[in-house]
């Protein structure tokens, strides 16, 4: 009996030790995942109507420099809008020409630009470190952004957990967009894919098919869609989910055009 117990111990003890070692090692790898930057971040993303995403972020430098506050909103869906552009001015301050932005944002919107500038200047000057009240925004002069909402998104941000390690795409453009002309004769139009980052991780991917008349497939009434179109939307949804899970753009089970589009998006994510 003693002999059996001894043999049992000899076999079990190393297995337990190896098991504990593997668990500890895995925990360590998980904890160390990511890259430390010269600052840490607290941020909030709010999804709004029409695929707008509003964000507030506070960056805390590791040195004794001031914190950095950014508030803006981005649209990952729409390709262009007459109200969104980047003006180039001449020496006299007259608009010389306009450049289309890569992606629509509140800060490149004719209507919201001044508000966004005022908000960013205000928060960077005030350097709020804790929850604020309406009184704290009394001197902020804005016309279109709702102060109550601003107060709410800031308070949620300042109370959120600080992010210390950045994901692998921290050097990539905060937002990136690519497009691909459809090669399917029965589906003339253009494919478009856009990503947005969250401290070096992919926060969201938006894939759209825009037909020749400028209509978005995602806006089409489900009842008026044919089976091919429904299949495309399902394909897009599943590839998006998988890419977000893997934190890498996947092209699995997609048609040739979407594959090319997503390969371009992955290249965009890794190009510096």
């Amino acid at each position, binding site marked *: 009996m003693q002999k059996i117990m001894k043999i049992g111990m000899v076999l079990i003890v190393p297995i337990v030790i190896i098991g504990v070692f593997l668990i500890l090692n895995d925990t360590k790898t998980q904890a160390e995942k990511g890259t430390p930057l010269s600052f840490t971040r607290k941020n909030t993303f709010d999804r709004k109507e029409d695929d707008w995403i509003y964000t507030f972020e506070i960056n805390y430098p590791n040195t004794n420099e001031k914190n950095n506050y950014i508030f803006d909103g981005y649209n990952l869906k729409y390709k262009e809008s007459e109200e969104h552009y980047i003006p180039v001015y001449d020496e006299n301050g007259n608009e010389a020409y306009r450049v289309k932005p890569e992606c629509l944002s509140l800060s490149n919107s004719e209507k919201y630009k001044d508000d966004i500038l005022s908000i960013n200047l205000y928060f960077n000057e005030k350097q709020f470190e804790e929850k604020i009240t309406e009184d704290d925004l009394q001197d902020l002069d804005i016309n279109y952004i709702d102060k109550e909402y601003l107060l709410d998104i800031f308070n949620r941000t300042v109370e959120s957990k600080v992010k210390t390690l*950045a994901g692998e795409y921290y050097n990539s453009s*905060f937002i990136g967009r690519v497009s691909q002309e459809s090669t399917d004769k029965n589906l003339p139009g253009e494919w478009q894919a856009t990503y947005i980052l969250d401290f*070096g991780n992919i926060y969201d991917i938006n894939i759209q098919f825009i037909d020749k008349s400028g209509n978005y497939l995602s806006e089409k009434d489900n009842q008026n869609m044919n089976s091919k179109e429904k299949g495309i939307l399902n394909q897009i949804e599943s590839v998006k989910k998988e890419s977000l899970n893997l934190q890498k753009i996947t092209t699995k089970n997609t048609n040739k055009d979407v594959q090319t589009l997503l390969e371009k998006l992955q290249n965009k994510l890794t190009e510096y």
Partner: protein
Amino acid sequence: MKRKMMLLGFLTIILGSNVVNVKAKDCTEIHAAPHVYQVAPYVNTKRFGLYTSYDSCYGSNTEVWFSSFTFLPDSVTNSVDPIWVDLMEGDPEGNEDELVKQYAVRIIGRTATDAQLIRTVTAGLIDSEGDKKAELYLRMVSGGRQGLSIEKSMFNYQICMK
């Protein structure tokens, strides 16, 4: 017949004078702007030899065209600091290069919101009188936190000389 001849002569004069008046523009290809640093140091693009269609190279005849603005990288913290873009005329070693024009690409948060020609520093001759070729380049630096590198081309540019 006489009227026809007069009309033909008139058209020839008009067309001829227009041809004389049209000054060709010499432009670089469209290039991606280089990665820049915040505060320091300045980063230069390569030099481009551009020809003027005037008798000499004048600063007032230079142009910088901006396009394809993109977003700042996620790793860069910025609030409202611009990227300063100086159009320079390069001189042979030993002589100081000349600042011709100064532009600012303004950024709010991570978005380029506008660009402006802030001032023309040298409107007159930027090279020796009679020299019809200028060596032009851009030098750039960003406002913001000391030494932080923006590892991303933020826009495309094209330099032209009339």
